[in-house]
């Protein structure tokens, strides 16, 4: 139940082919070893990229999870923006959004 645990899950998912396969076939089982809150579990399983961003997941981890989920770059950017609109400002970490929720910077 921490930003560290959810970040660790996504870090391992980004680099471990066996975990990727397990996540594709049985996602709930694949994430079971990680101590996640219900909100965090839901964000990963859905996946709710916007909520993961708001929870404070480092973008350098999150963008690869988004790509793994088949989410295209512009969609990835928009989902984070939508996440802030829906869930409020980024709660932790160093990847807080500076621009407004309806602004576009590049690639959106």
């Amino acid at each position, binding site marked *: 139940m921490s930003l*560290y645990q959810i*970040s*660790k899950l996504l*870090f391992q998912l*980004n*680099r471990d082919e066996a975990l990727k396969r397990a996540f594709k076939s049985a996602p709930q089982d694949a994430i079971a070893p990680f101590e996640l809150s219900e909100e965090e579990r839901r964000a990963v399983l859905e996946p709710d990229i916007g909520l993961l*961003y708001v929870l404070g997941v*480092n*973008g*350098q*981890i*999150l*963008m*690869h999870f988004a*790509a*793994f989920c088949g989410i295209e*770059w512009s969609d990835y*950017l928009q989902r*984070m*923006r939508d996440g*802030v609109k829906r869930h409020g400002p980024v709660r932790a970490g*160093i*990847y*807080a*959004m*500076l*621009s407004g929720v309806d602004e576009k*910077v*590049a*690639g959106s």
Partner: protein
Amino acid sequence: MSLVFSGICSHAPGITGRAERADPALRDPLYKAFGGMRDALHAARPDALIVVAAEHFANFFMNNMPAYALGMAENYDGPIEDVEWLRIPRRTVRGNPDLSRRLIVEVQQSVDVAYAEEWRFDHGIMVPLHFLDPDNRLTIIPGNINCQGPPLTPLRRAWAFGEALRRACDAVPERIALVATGGISHWPATPDSGMINVDWDKDFLDRWVRQDKDAMLSYTDAETYRDAGQGGFEIRTFIAAAAAARGQGTIHFYAPIPIFAVGCTVATMEIA
């Protein structure tokens, strides 16, 4: 022999992964500048290239995060990212563990560098290699400065790391090239991706070109975060390159390319 080449360049994944979305009037000169750097690098006939990067959780994580690391493997694989996403084919890069060991031993005289006999390259190294060593000919020794997961090493220690690398390169008989990769101001992988503080970038590069150590080391992380974003923390790699080269720099290319999420930079520094 000695350090025979030193340069810095951007490594943003969009440079290859979103190439078609950039303005060709900016993208093509960037690629050309990378080509010029490639030619200069190979003309220096290096026996090995040290790439000092700011990797993005491909190998190192907050369970055991080294401030500094050098690779000591027979070979390295990359990119770790989806090859379709990064649009760089996977390759195995040749290392040299014996040379790595000798360099690490010398660096450790002044900097407690971690070593790694496993290392998978992410875009921080693969984007530069894609342009600088397209035929996969060079022997590579990866280096890393933690620029992603705070607390981060102080800038003056990044300078000391560069000095230690120079001392180590001068202590071995091989010809060593060094390329440091990173961004200047940028807010990568956030909704603000594409935001670039051009004035801040140009001011930093001016300090770098002039080899103005005090000015390069005068930033606080709070100021960098405010003015240059979390991506600005990667100036540590450029600072290390300046400390290693000791000479005057030349900017071959700088332009903000928002879809690449960074002020794209290609520069070299004379070895003094």
